[in-house]
Structures are given as C-alpha cells and as structure tokens.
C-alpha cells in the first residue's frame, strides 16, 4: 500500500492535477485547437493545462516518497464568517442600501473573531457606516444607494 508521507504536497498535487486536467480537457473539447502556426483559442490553455496536470502529478508522486508536514488545521468559523460577510455585503448593497449592508457585514465578520461583544460590534458598525458614507458616498461620490429603495 502506498502511504501518503506529505499530506500538504498530496493535496496541492491533487489540486493542480485537477485544475490542469479541467482546463486542458475543457479547452480541447469546446474550443478550436488550430495549428502551431495559427493557434486556435484552445491551443495555449490546452498546453498550459497539460503542463499544470503534469506538475500536479509530479508533486502528488513526491508526496508518497518524501516526508513532509501535515496540513495545518483548518479553522472554518473565521473562514466562513469572513467570506459570508463579503458576499452578504455585495448582494445586500442594491436591495438594502449601503448603511444596512455595511452593518450586516461588520456583525457577520465580527462573528468570525475570538470574542464577540454586541456593544463593541455595534459601535464599530456605526463608526464604519458613518465613515464610509462620508468618505465614499459624500466625498468620493460613489453611486451607492444609502437606504432601501422604498424609503428613499
């Protein structure tokens, strides 16, 4: 039985192998290859994808041969909260306006931290809302809605 000696390299190799194969195959199937003289849209990505797959394969192979460090523990809460706060901001901006979107973002992002105190977080949210409205909407005149449509 092959044993994975270097988990970090194993997963990195898998990632590169997968991404490379995907790009190469997708390009070859969907776009025109052309010839070396007149390269079609598939040519360069197919070659690069193939190269990436080979590199991934080598890294993967190496992970069975050479001992390496473990993958450090993934922390899902900060990751999830930070990503969710960004996505929430983007998709709440148009329906709810900047004020509420910013507030939601700050609260969700703060949930990803070590300590969460409502009072602190709300104060921070208010401060950031005021700052962004003054700087970005008033001073730099970015075209963001401030409030939900039906109130303005």
């Amino acid at each position: 039985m092959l044993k994975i000696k270097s988990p970090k390299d194993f997963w990195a190799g898998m990632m590169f192998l997968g991404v490379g194969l995907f790009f190469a195959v997708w390009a070859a199937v969907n776009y025109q290859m052309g010839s070396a003289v007149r390269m079609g849209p598939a040519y360069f990505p197919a070659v690069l994808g193939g190269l990436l797959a080979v590199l991934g394969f080598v890294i993967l192979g190496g992970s069975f041969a050479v001992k390496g460090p473990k993958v450090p523990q993934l922390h899902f809460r900060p990751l999830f909260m930070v990503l969710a706060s960004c996505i929430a901001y983007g998709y709440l901006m148009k329906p709810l306006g900047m004020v509420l979107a910013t507030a939601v973002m700050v609260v969700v992002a703060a949930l990803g931290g070590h300590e969460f105190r409502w009072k602190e977080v709300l104060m921070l949210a208010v401060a950031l809302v005021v700052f962004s409205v003054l700087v970005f909407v008033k001073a730099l005149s970015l075209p963001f809605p401030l409030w939900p449509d039906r109130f303005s």
Partner: protein
Amino acid sequence: MDIFANLLLGFEVAVSPIHLLYAGIGVLLGTLIGVLPGVGPVATIAMLLPITFNLSPVAALIMLAGIYYGSQYGGSTTAILVNIPGEAASVVTCLDGYQMARQGRAGPALAVAALGSFFAGCVATLIIATVAPPLAELALKFGPSEYFSLMVFGLIAATVLAHGSLIKAIAMVVFGLLLGLIGTDVNSGVLRFTFGIPELSDGIGFVIVAMGMFGIAEIVSNLELKGDREVFTKKVTHLFPTREDFKRSWAPVLRGTALGSFLGILPGGGALLSSFGAYTVEKKISKHPEEFGKGAIEGVAGPEAANNAGAQTSFIPMLTLGIPGNAVMALMIGALMIQGIAPGPQVMTEKPELFWGLIASMWIGNAMLVILNLPLIGIWIKLLTVPYRFLYPSILVFMAIGVFSLSNNPWDVLVMAAFGLLGYICVKLECEPAPMILGFILGPLMEENLRRAMLLSRGDATVFLTKPISAGFMIASVILLLIVALPALRKKREEVFAEEQA
C-alpha cells in the same frame, strides 16, 4: 546631458501641486494601512487601488508608488514596535529592531530605518534614471519571440527566488496563467472558460484576485492566531540616534543600498530578498556578530536600506520591459492597464511625463516619508494599540467597497470571496500566491506573443532558440532551474535513502 533634461521634466511634473498632493496622500495612506499588523504592501495597494481609478495616469501611478513605499515603511514601524512583521520583508527588521525597542531604543531604531531608507531611496532613484533608458531602448528592439522568452525567464526567476517549494511555485505560475486566459480570446473572439456567465466575458479583474488571495486570505489566517502582542505604547523618546549610532550605521546603509539596488532589479527580487541578503551580509562582516538578534543597530540599518532600495529598483523591469518582477509590480502593471496604458518599453518614449514624473516623485515621496513619519510616529503607535477585532472588519468593509465600486456588481465581491477561499487553501498547502498573480497578469500577454512568434516563424518552435536574445533568456532560465533543482533533488534523494535505512 539627457538624464538631467529628463529628470528636470520629471521634477516639473512631480512638483506640480496636484501631484505633490497625491504623492503625499499616497505616502500617508500607505503608512497608515501598512502600520496595521498583518497587512502587507500587496494587500494595502490592492485595497487602495480603486481610489486611483478616477485619477489621471500620472497621478494614479505617483499615488500608488507613494502607497507602496509608505506601506513598506509602515511595516518596519510595526516590526520594530510590535515584533509583528507587516510584510515578509520586515521579518528581518523584527530581529534587531524589536530588541532595540525592548531596550528603550525604539526611537533610534525608527530614525535609522527612516534615514537609511531615505538614503537608499535617493540612490535607487538615480539608478533607475540611469539604467532604465538604455534598457528600454534595447527592449524596443524585441520581437514577439524575444518577449515570450523574456516572460518565461521572468516567471522562472520569480519562482526560483521565491521561498518555498520550487515546483509548487511553478505550478502556481501556470495556474495563474490559466486563470488569466478566462474571458474573450482577442484573436478569435471566442469566449473561453466563461461557462455562460456574462460577467466573465471580460475576464476576472486582477484587483479582485489580488484582494482575495492576499487580503481576505491574510485576514482569515490572522484570525486563527491567538495570543496578545506586546506593544511599546510608551512614549518613544530620544528619537534622534546618537553619534555612536550614526558611526555604526552608515556603512551598513551603504552596503544595504548597493545590495538592495542590485537584487531589486532581478525578477522575483525586490524588497524581501534584499533585506534578507543585507542582514546576512552585515552579520557576516560584523566585528561583533554576537550582538545580532540582541539589538544591533546594523541589523536594522542594513536591511531597511536594502529593502527600500530593492523596492525602488524593482520598478526598472516593470517600467522598461513591462514585466513585473514581484506581486507589487504586477499590481502596478494592472493599474497601468486600467488606465489604458500598455506597459512596455514604449511607455518611456510615448509618455515621458509619466515615466520621469514617476521617477522624480519617488525621490519626493521618500523625502515626504521622513518628514511625515518621524513627527507622526505617535499617531502610528496609537494605531498599533487598536485591537485586531476592530481592524479586520474595517479592512473587510474597505475591500468590499473597493471591489463593489469597480462595476457596481455583487458578482465581483463574490469572486473576491472565492479567491479568498482559494488563497486560504493555498496558504494551508504552502503554495505561494505571489507567483500566481504574476502568471495571472502575464497570461494573455504570453499567449499573444507566442501566437505572433509562431505565426512569424511559420510554426517553427526553434525560433525561440535560434534568435540570439531569445535563446539567451531561454538558456538563462534553464540554468536558473538547474541551479535550484539540483541541490533540491540531491537533498530529497538523501532523505529517501535515510528513511529506507532507518
């Protein structure tokens, strides 16, 4: 004297009040954000980039350059006072700078860092002014095959000099190249890898990639760390170094400047390599190496001068060849493209006011750094005491605003989050994001030049080896790879053998 005429033109541009203002704002904002622990120059520039979109190209570039050295200097302040490197290049400054701060000598450490950086910045600016024009002239003669080989060389050099595993770095470059191809193919008009999503037809904005890979991923990684940091919030007194300090610092500053200027020009070089190199040199030739790591002022002066010199001279390949040597320069090229300027040697001849104005403003920006930072040090210290739980939501809000303002489309923020996830995974798997950004910027350019070269040579791939300049770059790339790969292979084999025997 051409140089003087050119520099004069540059200073005329740079000292116009509006450009002075933007340089000043850039330096100030850069320092302000660079001081924050865990926020490096790349994240700082990516975050502040959208502010410059509405400026003229000259003003935008002057401001971005200001942000760059501002954030670098801010990083040193954090390194000295908190022992947290704001960016990789300040790791070295932590070693002795923080020890000096613990001995109550934070003031001289900060002052030497500022003055050393200023001196290095002046010298490096002169070097850019002398080296860049002939290099650009040479590059104007490059055809597509030379360009392609140059990009191969640049990317390989960047991976070789980056830290970490070589093969993973190369894989990240290829990954970046592929991501750069997403969008409409310029030659055929075919939509590639857009999966029917209309937002992807213009490709992925590199600001979004940079903010996700560097900004978001950094924040998530920082949130994992626990523990308090010891901040020297006490008043920093005795800012001015003693005569003894000066006597011990001037030679390291000179050596650091020379080393940094040289290393900065190399692809993949820049600030990081320069500061590490300078520290090693100072420790080697010092008469009392045992003081290093315990607060030797040479260990601050040398690396600080070197990293500033390297930061400046890394503009040379960017400005003359249009090839980014590191992630910061990739961002600069991206900024140029957003301004509608094709990076490359023609920038110098077609837009002399941009080229020389930027160079002159570097000198002015460095002077501003010293003038602004030494008196403002109290404010920066205050900033350092702000807990991270207040900082990171604020940084996130600013990044989200910046990305959203690109095209008022939530899609962009979603993509930023996706790259944040990818960046976090890459950190965990020890895959450097910087080479990926380089590849991402160069992907379309490389394809374009490859296509043209092959068309001109009628499909003969040996053209890359028969044209002398192109062949030179290719041979240099192979040599570089061999130099690094061979010892690594030997070591790996030894490890395998050692295991089998055990």
